[in-house]
């Protein structure tokens, strides 16, 4: 999948940097360390900015292209920051034939961002995901941990309002 790369400036705190260093120290020298390092770095920062990937590459003493190769291969790894509220619209087959694309269109229109992007105020990020397995409730979207099922595009405004209050 083509990854969108964030152009928002990267900030980190000394605590985050320290945690990342600990992760790198722990995994250094182990075979196949890149994937677990990226998983843990994403836990720390919420996403994987290039700066973090560089630090992992230097720390593990592997070429950056190898780290970048893995981070862009798997869709779980995100190169863009997530908003305070992360919206995920399921575009699995069951949801798609029941009109999930129209729900996504409505969200794109309302939020003014494309999938894999974050609004400028950091309030919402949007992604189109693969099947989350709640096909009985199709079409489905999730906002953070909350699942909304049996959606029609008209539901979008009401759901967004819950998170903007």
């Amino acid at each position, binding site marked *: 999948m083509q990854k969108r790369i964030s152009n928002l400036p990267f900030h980190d705190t000394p605590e985050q940097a320290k945690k990342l260093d600990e992760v790198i120290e722990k995994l250094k020298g182990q075979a196949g360390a890149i994937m677990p390092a990226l*998983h843990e770095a994403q836990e720390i920062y919420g996403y994987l900015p290039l700066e973090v990937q560089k630090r992992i590459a230097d720390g593990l003493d592997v070429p950056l292209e190898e780290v970048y190769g893995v981070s862009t291969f*798997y*869709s779980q790894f995100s190169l863009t920051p997530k908003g305070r509220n992360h919206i995920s619209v399921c575009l699995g*087959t069951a949801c798609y034939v029941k009109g999930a694309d129209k729900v996504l269109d409505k969200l794109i229109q309302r939020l003014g961002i494309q999938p894999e992007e974050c609004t400028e105020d950091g309030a919402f990020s949007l992604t189109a995901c693969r099947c989350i397995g*709640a*096909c009985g*409730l199709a079409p489905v979207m999730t906002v953070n941990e909350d699942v909304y099922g049996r959606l029609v595009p008209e539901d979008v405004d009401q759901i967004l309002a819950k998170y903007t209050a």
Partner: protein
Amino acid sequence: MFRSNVLVCGGTGCTSSNSEQIIERLNEEIKAQGLDKEVNVIRTGCFGLCALGPIMVVYPEGAFYSRVTPDDVPEIVSEHLLKGRIVKRLLYQETVVDDNTTKSLNETTFYSKQMRIALRNCGVINPEKIDEYIALDGYAALGKVLTEMTPQEVIDLMLASGLRGRGGAGFPTGLKWKFAAANDADQKYACCNADEGDPGAFMDRSVLEGDPHSVLEAMAIAGYAIGASQGYIYIRAEYPIAVKRLQIAIEQAREYGLLGKNIFDSGFDFDIDIRLGAGAFVCGEETALMTSIEGKRGEPRVRPPFPAAKGLFGKPTVLNNVETYANIPQIILKGADWFRSIGTEKSPGTKVFALGGKITNTGLVEVPMGTTLREVVEEIGGGVPGGHHFKAAQTGGPSGGCIPAKLIDTPIDYDNLIAIGSMMGSGGLIVMDETTCMVDIAKFFLEFTVDESCGKCTPCRVGTKRLLEILNKITSGNGTLEDLDKMEELCYYIKENSLCGLGQTAPNPVLSTLKYYRDEYVAHVTEHRCPAGACKALTNYTIEADKCKGCTLCARNCPVGAISGAVKETHVIDTTKCIKCGVCMEKCKFGAVVKK
């Protein structure tokens, strides 16, 4: 002993519609009424009828409550559990015979044609309690294998049963084991593929959520048969509930000595670890999955050497799918003849399908092989809702094809589905009605494979991209008839030249829709028309003058101000401004807005 047992579905579908809160509320209410010593609340795996979730079943009566909300709980507790009066308004209507009698679930059309082997414990036991699994013959098969059978006898039994891989390709499981057993090595692996990547498929997830021990038990049996002491389960990170239950199950099995050293005092050691995927469809392919467990980009490898000779970390490896494993303990206990008596000659046993899309009873079903598509869709699935008609069923996900309505009487097994240009796949079965455009569906799957192609081999990486470009050309009204022929040629080229299963099957959605719905493709190309009205570029919204009352509702709701007209006069849509969102059509109370 409890007087009543309340089973609440804790599968992903029902959890998404608040079954956790229902359980909390139940426990509170039961306590408040002083019933906590008499009534037991059990969180189970999936019941299958996801369309009616959240589901709750109360035994001994067997009352099947559907679409329960947390607010219904006090009534269920005070009426049913305290006073013994079933809450009729919440019962699944199919189970209600008359005012005073209900029939059992097994007599309803959804369940009566099903036969549950892989799903036998789903919705029956608490998956987080190993004792409940053991009470239903759990780990008896492992005990039998380790104390009464040689590895060769286990392999012979698997061969005799005719069990074929449920992940999609249908390779005989016994044969896989035989090959891996024949290779000598200091270390071998028995792995489980739980990277269920087909969109719209959730069979494996449901088995892992509802009955994780059956998979662990079968993996240990496989380990014994081939001589492996270590197993890995590669599971999607998108399945948090399944991952959690697997972790609990592995810990409990270790505690009971059913995993670890010297199992059943037989001298056999076997342990299992979980490896999380990171969201890559290609990792469902066996060699890619193993590369990913090794921590690399999940790219497939050239075969041969096959995993049975050189698999994970270069060692002989057996990799079976979740559903395949879930069948194995029963086969060991009941024998090959029993298994062969179910299903068809070449495809014995049952198959689990995830029914989804335009169908009344979305959910999980398990039927004997050879059941016709009609029985699955019309009887078990309850048909297509909303007065629409069955147009096609899609099986096999992005690797499969569409089965048209005229072939609805095809008995489902591996070979029949291949013969009609689809494939069994892992079991996703998506129903489509006449509002689904088959060109659009082909495009949907190609978008998926273009995204998920790992890029290692050119036919798949570039070929699928070119296919998608042609499909986009057609759905935007710029296709030509030559494009259809070019597309077909390209499809066969990709199939023949791709490295792994992803590329070899990626053109199937295009080929099968071209085969059965060529007229729809032709309509897009020659008439610039989408017969299903799904392709936006080819549909225009217009207002029929004789039906329009001039109520202004459409104009007020149009997000781009494309509709003009005075009150009580016919409105007009400016097609140059219209973004074809369809809001006007949904809002119009008089059916005056039509898609053409």
